[in-house]
């Protein structure tokens, strides 16, 4: 199969452009900067626009403008920059604007460091800005998926008129792997609601303000209905060797790659262990978790954050099966051996 060897951060831009994205607005930050570099290189060559904004705040508001105008548009950043974007993301969610935000997570809080973490889970998966909103969140675990989800994100964004995050980490962003490119999209859905400077759209309004509490409640209810549909229809997860598994490891992104090897090693030792990898974090793959909880003795959540993913696992399982946490923070990545040893320890305890 014909492939190109490239970085996750570059693959996501190529995927986005193949999806018809023709606008990038962003501010540099390690370990997401190669996304801006690639966008600066390829947007102008493919008929798009690239602006290095004066801040992440400006960037997300440029995205807001471009999305209002009906364009497929993206931005990217890492923890500190995502924090700055949150007001703008809330506006996008409120005004129901489709856009794609890539978060290549680094160590926090504060300036933290630039090593990989998953500590933006809460601020990305749970809304993050003000108001009752949710963003769809995709969590790639390979460079191929950076490309593929770069495309999928735009489809979902347009389908639901909602911001979509690609939530990843310094490892997936920085690593290189072979990528097979999908075909470019033929046609971007017609956006009759957008403001395009045309006669047909001169009655259109993009806004998130609703002064009347009843109106705003109705708007909120409409949003919640949309999120319910997304929860029903868009859950995605990958199961690995779960068929007869008594122990389920759960983790996303780079963690799933490490867990996969840990599962293989444990299986060789005869341990009945499998892995569930959430691909969508919102919607959380509740169906898969619930199904696996029926036969599992316990779950082990592995994450590079302070127990953020585990909240969703526990909420889904509702106390039916024990759920344990193994986590590292600060840019340290759990090793295969650590995961292996943690499983062995928990088996002895349970």
């Amino acid at each position, binding site marked *: 199969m014909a*492939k*190109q*060897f490239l970085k996750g951060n570059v693959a996501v831009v190529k995927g986005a*452009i193949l999806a018809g994205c023709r*606008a990038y607005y962003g501010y540099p930050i390690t*370990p997401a900067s190669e996304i801006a570099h690639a966008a600066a290189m390829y947007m102008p*060559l*493919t*008929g*798009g*626009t690239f*602006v290095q904004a*004066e*801040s992440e*705040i*400006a960037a997300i*508001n*440029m995205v*807001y*403008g*471009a*999305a*209002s*105008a*009906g364009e497929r*548009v993206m931005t990217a950043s890492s923890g500190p920059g995502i924090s700055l974007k949150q*007001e*703008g993301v809330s*506006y996008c969610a409120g*005004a129901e604007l489709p856009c794609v935000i890539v978060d290549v997570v680094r160590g926090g809080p504060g300036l933290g*460091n*630039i090593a990989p973490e998953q500590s933006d889970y809460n601020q990305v998966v749970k809304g993050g800005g003000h108001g009752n909103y949710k963003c769809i969140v995709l969590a790639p675990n390979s460079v191929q998926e950076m490309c593929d989800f770069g495309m999928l994100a735009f489809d979902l964004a347009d389908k639901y008129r909602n911001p979509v995050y690609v939530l990843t980490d310094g*490892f997936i962003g*920085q*690593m*290189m*792997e*072979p990528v097979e*490119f999908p075909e470019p999209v033929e046609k971007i859905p017609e956006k009759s609601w957008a*403001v*395009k*400077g*045309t*006669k047909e*759209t*001169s009655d259109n*309004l*993009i*806004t998130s*303000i609703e002064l*009347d509490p009843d*109106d705003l409640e109705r708007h909120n209810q409409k949003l919640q209905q949309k999120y319910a549909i997304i929860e029903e229809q868009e859950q995605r997860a990958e199961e690995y060797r779960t068929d007869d598994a008594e122990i389920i490891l759960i983790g996303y992104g*780079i963690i799933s*790659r*490490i867990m*996969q*090897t840990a599962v293989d090693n444990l299986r060789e030792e005869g341990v009945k262990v499998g892995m569930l990898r959430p691909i969508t974090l919102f919607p959380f793959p509740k169906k898969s978790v619930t199904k696996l909880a029926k036969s599992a003795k316990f779950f082990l959540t592995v994450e590079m954050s302070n127990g953020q993913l585990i909240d969703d696992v526990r909420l889904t399982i509702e106390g039916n099966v024990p759920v344990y946490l193994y986590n590292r923070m600060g840019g340290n*990545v759990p*090793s*295969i051996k650590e995961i292996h040893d943690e499983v062995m320890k928990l088996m002895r305890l349970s």
Partner: protein
Amino acid sequence: MNNILKKSASFYDVYERRPGADKLTTTYCPGCGHGVLHKLIAEALDDFGVREKTIFISPVGCSVFAYYYFHTGNVQVAHGRAPAAATGIKRAHPDSVVISYQGDGDLAAIGTAEIIHAANRGEGITVFFVNNAIYGMTGGQMAPTTLVGQKTMTSPRGRSVNNEGYPIRMSEVIATLKAPVFIERVMIGDTKSTMHARQTVRKALKLQIEKNAFSFIEVLSACPSNMKLTPSRSKQWVKEVLADYFPLGVKKDVSEEFEPKDISRLVVSNSELPDALNLETAKVDSEKIAPYREKKINEEIKVAGFGGQGVLSLGTVLSEMGMRHDYQVSWLPSYGPEMRGGTANCSVKISQKKIGSPLVANPTILIAMNRPSLDKFENDVISGGLIIYDNSLIDRKPVRDDVEIIAIPATKMADELGNTKAANMVIVGALIEYKDLMSQEVVLESLGDVLKRKNLVELNQKAILRGAEFINNLK
């Protein structure tokens, strides 16, 4: 008197978007400058015949509901960010007329960065900046343009220079920039000044329509409600007091000599996309790689050395070549500050099986290009693994006795070839020869596709051959 906006086709006849029973009057207080400025803008849009192609951006502030009135495309944006949103809109639709409308809190406080940079980029938009020296919507707090001594809710004893500094003259600030084409401060005071403001509004919009030029129009304006003055007294205050600190007039005008920039977008069809986006993929010569399909390859390689020794590219070349042999491959660099200390390393996995973690903790092969790397990673190598080290730079031998060891003077050999930088390829040649990981023919043939510096391909091919020769002499 000013709170009914009528007769302009660029206004709605009935303000259906306005909640409540009153759909005919505006939300602006009597005597407010916003209403008058709205009229001047709407009239100009009518006269220039651009209503349909206009996109009006409402800020946060009293003019947040401008979209009740303007029968144009409307976008309501976050506090201070209108120029950023305008940038996104204008670039999406270069032929539209984009109006970025802001108050003084919006533009000169929270949104300072956005207006300065939109102006500095010379975005093809028209900015209307209503300076009423106060925060109207939130109930009369101090603005960056509030006058010294002026009492507001947050400067109850009057604005003090010690505590709040001086009012900012935004038009003058923006006029220091190169890209803006037309900057003028006008006022809505008496009839004469309003008539002049009308001309200025028209000029600014015309400049966008005809030349896609950035204009910035500051409009001194009254907020009778928060000034607690009658409409006519407040207009007088604008004229006599506000305009005294904020001098009226043109601050910059290069409209005559300004050449319209080409802001049209390239049109790239899907068939042209692979070239434009560089989607070229690697060629795999199935015949040449056939012998390697049978091999059980599962190598975890750590490459480490000084920055500048080509450690990272040694890793990418191995991975790229691995990919050309239909192996699964991954490459993960050490990145960021770790690099700044002068050392670099990368993890490379080459396998027939799907690759799990891309991070190499316990290498099957360690390539150490300097002493610190050998010191750091020697103990991590798995028992039975391989250490390749550059003994022209490293002054000690590995101490492990449970691994294979190859000492190769790669840097010296590269020097002999005429370029120290080829040391990494000497090692590539040695490794693939020693382990028979890949077809040397394929590696040599594809080197030109893989290396960024095309002028060094021949040298690096020689280096690979030298590395292989070194191994064959050992055998």
